[in-house]
């Protein structure tokens, strides 16, 4: 069923009883051309682009839980393309271009809101670094704007501009096209669009092992039986190491927990996505009015999907250093998600040493914004058995070759990215 104003009108006349399910509850078939392990945003986008761009429609997406129940529903929904290191800049900009047309492309409103992302600068030196970033972006045809302190104050009057501010605001770099999207809508939209092209989306189906023949992958063993496929793509986020280990692949990855927070809803206050320049902190306001924000990793290996109080305290302190007016807001909830942190802070989209097995992971905590381009390039990699120009640098063996993409410049220490 195509969603449209006419359809809404028609369904309204019928008391909204005629809406059909967004995607079929598919039963697993005996075999597929391609199996995607992981029904998060990246896995679903991959299946969608396999069908749309490469005509491969005999595809199954196997999801252990339910669609929208993993990290695609746990992030802080920020979309931007202001990266500076070679490889990252064009990849994330292509993702941004896909975001800009995504609701029409999927016939599903992903509520992409280009409200702009503001990264504050707190010293003259940091403003120089921001200027360098802006120039790098402009050289790639990406719009970037530098604001001075007065302009920041005009646009974001609620921050601390007093003499007491711990980190005085000198200015900011702004990407106006950046913003937020409704995260579960992205999962649902890709699931529905992939399903309409013939992809089977199979929920409650955990992949437990792989089947090989002469070193080549021939299928997967799941909680719902064996499913054959010559090509299997992994997109399992925080559990990348666990799943890849089943295929005998070691990864340059550690799993860490990242917390996110939302306050009680308030009237519109934070109009942009705002990043603090002096500490790791980012905030935006959801359409329901809650302030959504996050900070650093807890810092130790974890699969527990729950964080610890020192980070809660630290993030709250940072929030108040930035905007003392947040001080009386009550925290509505906070949660933890498991991030697969690579050794250089950049993702991996590549073939693997096992023939027929492909890997997409290591998104650290920047995976949400990459969803469309990740699916686009992973589908290309699987369909052509070779990477797309945009993900050629996200090779699995770049660490062995010394071609790390270390945007933060912190070295092979996963909890520092």
């Amino acid at each position, binding site marked *: 069923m195509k969603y449209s104003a006419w359809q809404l009108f028609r369904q309204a006349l019928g008391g909204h009883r005629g809406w059909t399910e967004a995607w079929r509850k598919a039963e697993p078939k005996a075999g597929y051309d391609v199996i995607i392990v992981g029904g998060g945003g990246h896995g679903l986008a991959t299946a969608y682009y396999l069908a749309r761009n490469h005509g491969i429609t005999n595809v199954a997406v196997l999801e252990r839980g339910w669609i929208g129940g993993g990290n695609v529903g746990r992030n802080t929904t920020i979309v931007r393309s202001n990266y500076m290191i070679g490889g990252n800049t064009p990849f994330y900009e292509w993702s941004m271009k896909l975001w800009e047309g995504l609701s029409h492309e999927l016939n599903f409103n992903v509520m992409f809101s280009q409200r702009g992302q503001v990264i504050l600068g707190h010293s003259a030196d940091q403003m120089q670094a921001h200027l360098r970033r802006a120039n790098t972006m402009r050289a790639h045809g990406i719009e970037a704007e530098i604001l001075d302190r007065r302009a920041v104050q005009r646009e974001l009057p609620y921050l601390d501009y007093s003499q007491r501010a711990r980190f005085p605001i000198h200015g900011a770099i702004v990407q106006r096209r950046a913003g937020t999207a409704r995260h579960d809508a992205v999962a649902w939209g890709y699931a529905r669009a992939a399903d309409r092209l013939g992809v089977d989306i199979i929920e409650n189906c955990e992949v437990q092992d792989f089947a090989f023949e002469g070193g080549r992958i021939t299928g997967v063993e799941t909680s719902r039986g064996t499913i054959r496929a010559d090509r299997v793509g992994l997109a399992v986020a925080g559990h990348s190491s666990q799943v890849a280990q089943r295929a005998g692949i070691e990864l340059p990855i*550690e799993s860490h927990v990242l917390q996110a927070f939302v306050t009680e809803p308030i009237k519109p206050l934070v109009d942009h996505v705002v990043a603090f320049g002096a500490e790791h902190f980012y905030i935006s306001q959801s359409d329901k009015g809650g302030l959504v924000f996050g900070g650093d990793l807890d810092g130790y*290996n974890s699969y527990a999907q729950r964080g610890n109080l020192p980070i809660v305290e630290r993030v709250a302190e940072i929030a108040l250093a930035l905007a003392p007016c947040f001080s009386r807001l009550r925290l509505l909830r906070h949660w933890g998600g498991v991030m697969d942190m690579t050794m250089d802070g950049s993702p991996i989209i590549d073939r693997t040493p096992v023939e027929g097995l492909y890997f997409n992971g290591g998104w650290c905590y920047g995976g949400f914004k990459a969803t469309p381009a990740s699916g686009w390039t992973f589908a290309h990699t699987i369909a052509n058995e070779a990477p797309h120009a945009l993900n050629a640098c996200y090779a699995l063996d770049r660490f062995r070759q010394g071609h790390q993409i270390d945007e933060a410049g912190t070295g092979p220490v*996963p*909890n520092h990215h």
Partner: protein
Amino acid sequence: MLRIRCPFCGDRDHAEFSYGGDASVERPPLDHDSREDWYRYVFVRANPKGRHREYWQHVHGCRSWLVVERDTGSHAILGVESAAGSLEPARDG
């Protein structure tokens, strides 16, 4: 809050400690010339879901390096010892 029983200072909040990563990786000798072994030492991690031996430094206490065995699925701490015993003294390269 994790509570780590430092062998020198007693039970302390983990906020007093700094995390040092996987303690099971072994640094090759400085004159070791296998690129593969150095690659594995610097980049590859087992990343287990379950028991994990890891370094923590008691930076806001006695400053000792410790080896903590902890469950990465439950955060339960299973054992703590001084890292001094497990480390070879540095050799001149």
